[in-house]
């Protein structure tokens, strides 16, 4: 049990006190002329031994409680089906708009969407147009996370600069909270190259096992300058990730696959989505782009990923430090209650 630890180990010296019941009984003694006259009684001996043990255990439990016994944080190795997923979420201000490119209206402002997926889903049928892209992403990602029990999921966001939200972790509550945190109003622009770099950095110092997925959720793209492009190429190669791009297309905006009508528009500034798609395709890594024009399409894309990424995965589950002193005190209280009962059973001698 190397996991046992103590807050104040010197208090363990008090364990010596547990030997006290061996030569002090705490009972009122009556003088007796000759003990040899009393017949041997195994039951009495057993009861006395029990009382002694209970007293020793009570003292030991008290001392262990005083010394702050606890179980150290531990990690348990588990095997499951899943992946290491880093979600890279777009936090540019356009994400707060609906798929129609308008500000979301009505009560469904996205604030409740992340926390209560069921209700939000119910409202999806009636008010598709009202839901913001961020809210839809939040809701669907929450559902996605709920399905994936064994995944390690990390979250990064980007806007003008990348935001480190949550490293790869198996802690569902933390992931949910991180996703829900995107309910805060979005920020300014789109700086996708730095966001990608940060998302890829999440895989540093992680064993390569299962599949590594980078899930990019964005509603637009930006041009990547050549320096960043070269750096990203190397990073993508190093980290061996699969890339899924969930593109939330606003109505009337150019999609990923749209070819320019005018050759003059065929540049990264005019059609950043197309160029980003071309860049990703040229990386020679498994890459899949989904273009979603409404929450339903987005749900289909996520279900797709959910189905595809089910490789066996070793992962370690962290068990937090457990304070055992309360248990010790409880045990000591029970034992002392027993002793008190024994004390009350003491016969009154004349």
């Amino acid at each position, binding site marked *: 049990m190397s996991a046992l630890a103590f807050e104040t180990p010197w208090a363990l010296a008090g364990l010596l006190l547990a030997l006290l019941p061996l030569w002090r009984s705490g009972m*009122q*003694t009556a003088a*007796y*002329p*000759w003990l040899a*006259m009393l017949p041997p009684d195994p039951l*009495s001996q057993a*009861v006395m031994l029990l009382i002694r043990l209970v007293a020793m255990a009570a003292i030991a439990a008290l001392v262990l409680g005083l010394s702050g016994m606890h179980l150290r944080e531990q990690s348990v190795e588990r095997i499951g089906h899943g992946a290491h997923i880093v979600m890279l979420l777009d936090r540019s201000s356009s994400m707060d708009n609906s798929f129609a490119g308008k500000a979301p209206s009505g009560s469904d402002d996205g604030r409740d969407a992340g926390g209560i997926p069921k209700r939000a889903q119910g409202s999806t049928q009636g008010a598709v147009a009202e839901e913001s892209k961020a809210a839809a992403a939040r809701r669907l990602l929450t559902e996605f996370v709920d399905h994936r029990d064994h995944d390690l999921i990390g979250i990064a966001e980007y806007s003008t600069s990348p935001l480190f939200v949550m490293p790869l972790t198996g802690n569902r509550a933390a992931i949910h909270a991180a996703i829900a945190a995107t309910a805060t109003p979005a920020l300014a622009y789109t700086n996708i190259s730095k966001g990608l770099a940060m998302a890829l950095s999440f895989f540093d110092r992680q064993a390569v096992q299962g599949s590594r997925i980078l899930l990019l959720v964005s509603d637009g793209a930006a041009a990547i300058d050549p320096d960043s492009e070269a750096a990203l190429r190397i990073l993508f190669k190093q980290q061996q990730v699969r890339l899924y791009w969930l593109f939330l297309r606003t109505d009337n905006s150019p999609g990923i696959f749209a070819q320019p009508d005018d050759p003059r528009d065929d540049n990264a500034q005019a059609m950043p989505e197309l160029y980003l798609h071309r860049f990703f395709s040229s990386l020679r890594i498994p890459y899949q782009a989904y273009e979603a024009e409404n929450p339903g399409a987005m749900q289909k894309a996520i279900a797709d990923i959910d189905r595809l990424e089910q490789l066996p995965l070793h992962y370690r589950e962290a068990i937090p430090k457990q304070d055992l002193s309360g248990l010790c005190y409880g045990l000591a209280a029970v034992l002392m209650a027993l002793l008190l009962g024994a004390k009350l*059973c*003491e016969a009154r001698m004349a």
Partner: protein
Amino acid sequence: MSKAVPSFHYRLAHPGYRVFPGAHPGQTVGGGQLFKRHEPLLASPDPRRIDLRASVLDPFRHYRVRVFQQHSKLAVYVIADLSASMRGKLPLLADFVLSAAQSALECGDSFGFIGCGPSLDRRWLLPASQTLQPVRELAIRLADFQAHGKADSLQRAATLLPARRSLVFLVSDCHFDPASLRKLLRPLTPHAVVPMVAWDEAEYRGLPEWGLARFKDAENGRERTLLMRPDLKRRIVQAFEDRREHLRRIFRAFGMEPLFFSGAYRAEAMERYFLRHAL
């Protein structure tokens, strides 16, 4: 001290040979009422007791003198166990010592006391005498004496007794093993011994029926806890009854009849004892 102590009467069937006149039938020839035999005048030159009829009938024509058996004095000793186990019984012992001394002095016998603690202590030794005051002082000291240790010196008590047959009251609770009891009794056989076993009812009948009870041996300090219940108490009482029978057998093997005491001292019990048993 004003408390009146009842005395008791004791008698000995076979008193020893003692020169001093007293109240008990002796073997000494002297001034007494009981005719013993005829002797020649030369052997016992007392012309007042010439028996004319016997002299006439004497074929050798000698003067025959009647001699009488003289009642002789007796030494009464109390040998007391002053071990720690006797602590609760010392008031009884003090009462008994006073009563025995008074009874002895009433019929002109001398009284002595030998108290045996871990060693023979001068404080608890009283040579046979005919004064009551030292015995009174001794009884007062005895009543509030805090005894401790074992009564190892009991084995040496016999050496302090006179060689002549005396009446010895051996007061003890006999809470020691039978071997040392036998070793103690063997040198006492020349005397008329009355073993008095003092037990306290609280030691067995007075124990509680239920509950945890912790006992500490008065002599070796060992401790024991018992979970008292009616069955166990019955076994303890039975153990004491068995012990009583065992002790009686040991004493009888030495020609002594034990007298069991508990509670307060009663002189009537002594009277009854001496009426029943001739020593």
